[in-house]
């Protein structure tokens, strides 16, 4: 094992060590902030190491046997280091670090024991996410895939005493698990066909066209289902908005920047395999684009600031998936990275707002720019990046995605994505205008967040700009049609203008507008009935069927048995009459026995 693998391994093991220490040493965990400091220290070192690995452009692979069997190990674990994982390492460690620092202030009022628990989970999450990123094979990826899901579950349910949080945590777990059912079947099938989980070996065979197995399309589709769940693609996107019940930094880290992108990362990682099954790719592209549009429409009618951002995340994940489906996985991955930065920024800024006003409802905010200008500025930076305004990071990655989809001749998905650009600008500026400008609503005195929270915000904002400029300087390789930039800019501007006209100037009454688009409005506000559909299916189908089976088991399967035993008891009760307890009656029995013997001896001998 050499430095290129050892350093990423260090990145992986540092948060793990922090987790183990926090999990085992209870006094430290209960100390709260000190637990946070330990976790942050581990993360900072990990970040440095990741940065080194990225800058140096390390490559390498190291594996160890995990599940042995007679003919060599069935499964291995290890680290796979390449530019893809290096970039992700930096993103994950960076956002984790910033979020952990931010949480120190954001969750400062929590009881120490809870805060310690929070940082324990955070360390575990960082470890799991890094493990996922470094996976050299599908199995390890699945292992960490589930672990990040676990962390998501635990962190959404951080305030476990709130029924809504408890519900959301369980819902998130179930829905993503549903996708994982496909994932696990997929990798089982893949293993049965090829005998390996290893990316390197699979890709090599794919390159040599030696991967002609029956049903590869099915297998890849099943694996993709895992990504559908984790990356909140239609129709399994319903858990992500609910996941906003967790603390805001958690939403920033897990439900915007890192974990939800695992699906995209996986599709990107397994690109050589997906490339063999164009049908599945096209499906991925369609579903991605549709998800993007669907989520954007729901974001337009949402009034909870975090949920708007959540729908926006779903929408952007749709972009990434659409790019992956179009075969432009690089573009999708670039969008993943830039989105990770500015969406984390948006969430953290939203967290600062929520922290200040104590509500999530944008209509109970207003005019906050005056009270907290710094937060306002970084929020607007994030908004511009999300809306795809040059020279911010989001612009370039979004252009790359759009051009990739166009060049793959996925015309309808392209149109959906283009429309989404308009909607994105609209719903984001809607939030900006309502929250930061407009009439001051709250009677309280909102104030700027403490520096522990502002620091990460500014850093992320600076990175968003810097990455954008870096891309503007060096990112001219992709061949986009000339009309693409004007088109997307125009769409974004239309969205912005619409939001401005409706929520800032009052030129258009939002109510009239929604009446005009009544059917959409109606559906979007009800989340297109998908949540209700799931709830109904769950209650009627799963629980109903379970009750039926439970009843059958208790009263039919067991009933037959109880009838048998009751009959035995009855027969016994009938026969016990013979047993009078009087010795003389038994003498009758003896006498009859003797008589029987006589008769037998006389007649049948």
């Amino acid at each position: 094992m050499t430095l290129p693998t050892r350093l990423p391994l260090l990145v992986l093991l540092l948060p793990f060590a922090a987790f183990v220490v926090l999990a085992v040493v209870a006094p430290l965990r209960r100390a709260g902030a000190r637990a946070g400091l330990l976790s942050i220290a581990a993360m900072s070192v990990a970040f440095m190491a990741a940065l080194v690995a990225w800058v140096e452009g390390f490559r390498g692979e190291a594996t160890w046997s995990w599940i042995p069997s007679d003919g060599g190990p069935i499964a291995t674990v290890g680290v796979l280091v390449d530019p893809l994982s290096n970039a992700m390492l930096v993103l994950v460690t960076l956002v984790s670090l910033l979020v952990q620092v931010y949480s120190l202030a954001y969750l400062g009022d929590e009881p120490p024991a809870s805060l310690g628990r929070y940082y324990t989970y955070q360390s575990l999450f960082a470890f799991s996410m890094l493990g996922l990123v470094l996976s050299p094979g599908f199995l390890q990826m699945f292992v960490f895939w589930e672990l990040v899901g676990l962390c998501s579950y635990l962190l959404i349910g951080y305030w476990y005493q709130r029924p809504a949080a408890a519900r959301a945590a369980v819902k998130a777990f179930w829905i993503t698990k549903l996708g994982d059912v496909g994932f696990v079947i997929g990798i089982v099938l893949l293993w049965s066909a090829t005998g390996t989980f290893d990316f390197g070996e699979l890709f090599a065979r794919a390159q040599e066209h030696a991967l002609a197995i029956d049903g590869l399309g099915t297998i890849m589709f099943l694996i993709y289902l895992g990504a559908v769940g984790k990356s909140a693609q239609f129709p399994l996107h319903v858990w992500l908005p609910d996941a906003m019940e967790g603390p805001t930094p958690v939403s920033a880290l897990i439900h915007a920047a890192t974990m939800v992108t695992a699906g995209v990362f996986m599709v990107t990682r397994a690109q050589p395999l997906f490339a063999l099954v164009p049908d599945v790719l096209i499906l991925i592209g369609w579903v991605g684009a549709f998800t993007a549009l669907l989520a954007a429409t729901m974001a337009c009618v949402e009034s909870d600031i975090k949920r708007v951002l959540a729908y926006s995340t779903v929408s952007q994940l749709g972009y990434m998936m659409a790019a992956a489906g179009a075969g432009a996985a690089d573009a999708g991955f670039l969008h993943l990275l830039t989105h990770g930065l500015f969406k984390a920024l948006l969430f953290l800024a939203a967290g600062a707002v929520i922290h200040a006003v104590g509500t999530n409802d944008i209509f109970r905010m207003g005019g906050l720019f005056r009270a907290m200008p710094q937060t306002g500025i970084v929020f607007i930076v994030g908004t511009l990046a999300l809306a795809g305004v040059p020279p911010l990071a989001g612009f370039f990655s979004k252009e790359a995605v759009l051009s990739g989809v166009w060049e793959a001749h996925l015309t309808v998905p392209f149109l959906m994505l283009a429309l989404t650009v308009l909607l994105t600008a609209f719903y984001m500026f809607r939030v900006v205008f309502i929250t930061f400008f407009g009439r001051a609503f709250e009677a309280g005195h909102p104030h700027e967040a403490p520096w522990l929270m502002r620091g990460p915000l500014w850093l992320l904002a600076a990175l968003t700009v810097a990455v954008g400029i870096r891309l503007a300087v060096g990112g001219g390789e992709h061949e986009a049609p000339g009309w693409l930039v004007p088109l997307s800019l125009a769409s974004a501007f239309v969205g912005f203008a619409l939001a401005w006209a409706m929520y800032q100037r009052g030129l258009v009454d939002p109510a009239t507008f929604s009446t005009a688009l009544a059917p959409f409005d109606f559906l979007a506000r009800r989340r297109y009935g998908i949540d209700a559909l799931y709830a109904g299916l769950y209650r009627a189908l799963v629980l109903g069927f379970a009750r039926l089976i439970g009843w059958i088991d208790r009263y039919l399967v067991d009933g037959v048995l109880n009838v048998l035993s009751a009959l035995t008891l009855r027969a016994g009760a009938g026969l016990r009459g013979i047993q009078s307890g009087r010795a003389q009656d038994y003498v009758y029995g003896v006498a009859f026995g003797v008589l029987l013997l006589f008769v037998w001896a006389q007649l049948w001998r």
Partner: protein
Amino acid sequence: MTLETVGFGVVAALLLASSLAVVLTPNLFHSVLYLAAALVLTGVVFLLLEQPFLFAVQLLLYAGGVVTIVVFAIMLTERLVGDRIGQASRHPINGAIVAAAVFAGIVGFLIQAPVRATAPAPAGDTTAALGRALVGPFAVTLELLGVLLVAALLGAVYFARSEE
């Protein structure tokens, strides 16, 4: 009709009569007295079968011992109860039928059984031979019997002893 036949007839009749009296007398005390008679008469049957020693044993042990014990027992329980113990029969008809059926069954066998040649009457006194048999081939049985009697004695004492 020889004297022996007459004697047997008389003894048998008396035995049956006293036996019936045992099981039919309402008074328990009388019943015991009839039992004593029946036992003595059984002894006489033994005499008829040329076993004078058994006759003696029967008189001593049975008629003497058993009857005495039973009389004691009755008197003891009567004293405890404080009045005479009555004796009624339960389901006499059922009992009679079953008993008659068993009797019939036995007789059925007896009728079918082949009649074997009668051995000559033992010459001289059989008592000596009996004694030799007891300490000879039956010695172990005799010892075991002794053990049994001791055990029964202890058991009887245990059951009947007063509560501390």
